[in-house]
């Protein structure tokens, strides 16, 4: 696709663009065969604050296998003030998660086989279940839950369509990984 030196390949098959910005990489887990394109930003430094003396929770962002983070997207762990304490909370992405160009993700959990279009905003602490397609330009409100087999659109995002039983095959990203 492009010159070979653009991506750094890890032992587990992750391909990370040299032009991406990954902060706090010790708090980020990539499951393998995940592609991170140029200008992506992953904020692994924003991790949970714990009282002194305790070991900090190590993982800020966990990403599954065969995920694809397109150009210019941002993964930022969600944050809130709970009992007077401001803190970030871990973010978890499943397998075969596609994040489109310029999208901002602050979800708590994203399941497997999820396709997030271009220029979307996934609000804080939202939960996206398996087999979900989020159309371009959708804004998902904070704390919302998107059930499985949904196609979401709009501002704020609402379920506009039910996906067929073949959603997992449609949203699989193995071929996409091979093409890079």
């Amino acid at each position: 696709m492009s010159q070979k030196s653009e991506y750094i390949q890890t032992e587990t098959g992750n391909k990370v663009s040299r032009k991406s910005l990954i902060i706090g990489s010790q708090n980020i887990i990539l499951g393998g065969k995940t592609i991170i394109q140029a200008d992506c930003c992953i904020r692994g430094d924003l991790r949970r604050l714990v009282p002194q003396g305790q070991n900090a929770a190590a993982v800020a962002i966990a990403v599954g296998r065969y995920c694809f983070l397109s150009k210019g997207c941002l993964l930022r762990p969600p944050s809130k003030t709970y009992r007077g304490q401001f803190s970030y909370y871990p973010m978890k992405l499943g397998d075969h998660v596609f994040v489109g160009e310029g999208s901002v993700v602050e979800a708590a959990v994203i399941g497997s086989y999820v396709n997030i279009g271009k220029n979307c905003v996934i609000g804080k602490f939202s939960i996206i279940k398996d087999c979900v397609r989020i159309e371009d330009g959708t804004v998902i409100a904070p704390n919302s839950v998107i059930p499985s087999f949904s196609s979401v659109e709009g501002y704020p995002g609402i379920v506009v369509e039910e996906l067929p039983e073949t959603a997992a095959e449609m949203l699989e990203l193995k071929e996409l990984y091979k093409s890079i």
Partner: protein
Amino acid sequence: MSSFPYIHISCPCNEDRPQTLTIDSARPISPSKSPSKHDFSFPPAAPQTPTKRRTLLAPFTPSVSFDATNLDLDDDEELTDEDEENNFDPRDPRSAFSLFPIENLLYCEDCHQIRCPRCVQDEIVCWYCPSCLFEVPSSTVKSDGNRCTRNCYLCPVCTALLAVIPVNHSTLNPGSTSDHPTGPFNLFCSHCHWTTSDLSPPIQLEKPTSISAQLSKLTHSPQDNEFTRLKQHYAQQLGNAQEDFTNSPAALTRLMGLYTGLGSSSGSHGGGRKGRGVKKLEMKEVDRPREVIEEREMEIVERMAKAGLNATTNAKQRLSQPHEPRFISDLTPTAVLLRTKRSKRCRACRHILVKPESKVQTTRFRIRLVALNYIPSLTIKRLDSTIAWNNLTPHKTHRFLLTVTNPLFDPISVSLLTPRRTPGTAFASRVTILCPEFEVGANTDVWDDALMSTKPAAVTPSGVATPPVAGSFASFSKDPKMSTVYEQKRNYTSVVIEVVPPEIPDTRDTRIRDERLLEIPIYVRVEFEAEVDRDDEEGGGGRPSHSGASGGAVQREKVEYSYWCVVGVGRVGDPVEGVVASEPNTPVRTPVGTPVKAPRTPAAMRTPLRQVRS
């Protein structure tokens, strides 16, 4: 329509016209039998040589030769006119209802047919709230309605989910909040920042839990009151007449008379029934037209004038609420609508095609017969990356790559047939599939592919091996091997399709349909040899498999099926200078012509998708 390119497959339910029933009138319709036998049986006019094994499957007797090479290219023009009605017309209003992407189609193993969402029957497996993902028992749905009765509420302004926050919540001084936030509480929309305090009068909740119970006490819309009043009224009426409403047939006739009598006129009830000496039974209807009180309307107008249009609701907001409020301050939070998990049955044979697991949070299926696993799927790519899908140049030959992928475990031979000119329009585009007959390998293990990758490309039906082309297409176009397949890999084969669109006036504004939309109907015919277990035959057969676990005598038999699909190639753009019509001299005179007659034969009309020749 969706973005280009797209490929939609025509479900055979499109072809189940009433006339097939009249043809088959000799056979009595018995409800106990599978309706598929009836619906898809062959007309008696056709040669009746039923196969031994599957009687419901009629022999495939093509009325036209499918052999593309035998067709004389010279007289194709006449043939085109003659056989136009045989072709599938994607612009036909009826066909629009049966075209679906292959992902949306199911496959019935017993009818051997594609099943689209129109020809399946849904059955609810469970109800659940899409927000809290808790299952709601169907008894609760019956009693409490189809909305979440827990704590899930949507913002009436923007439909985002509402959160519960304390009224004195402040993000500015986080240190001041105690461990346990104390009430009262608001429902707060984190998307548009609407809160229940914005209402007039504001709603504030005592506790952060059991919101439904609290809200139902606080909000009494006039419509709720009206419903309660109606319910009370009719319950009372029913109570008065309880002794008359027994299960006897007489009571039923009386009940019927009651309502028919009401329908006629109010004056009639002085007559007939009185004479029988029965206690006068009459249901008093609460029949009050919606009153428009002038003062109230004036009040609303004044309020609108004062508050401005921004304080009024839009149609969507208004109609989503039972009391149809005119002002945003009258909107109340709406409970989340429940969603269902459904299983799907074939309408013809009642077999289950899809059965999801009943647990709400799993995405697995117990049964899932999707067409993707049974019929070869087509994809289209452009060979020349300069082709703009939305702006095809008239008179220019556009080359696309049509790829057929085989999901079966047996190699298949595929014939693609397309009308030489796209049907259903005055502005027909010329379409040529350069290699309409070819083989597609079996969907074997990926490892086989890796091991066989050194093997040269498979031999095409025409006997010429084609290595995958690496060079530019410009040199390739002069190649006489153009008539062979373009690329062949493990379980897919790609062939070239040429499209020459004509000049088409832009009709989007003046007419309902878009003449510039270029859709190509393609008739796909698939033939393969499947292993069939003997035990399997009586049960109507199943998908050919290599398992062989049943231990029955495995034998091979020829299976063939066919379907129409529509390829949405793109939109034809404005004519470009320098590119002119070249009708007699096609840029590449194709050595193998595409058969003109892609038949809408009985094969596609009334027989099952899949047939077996002994």
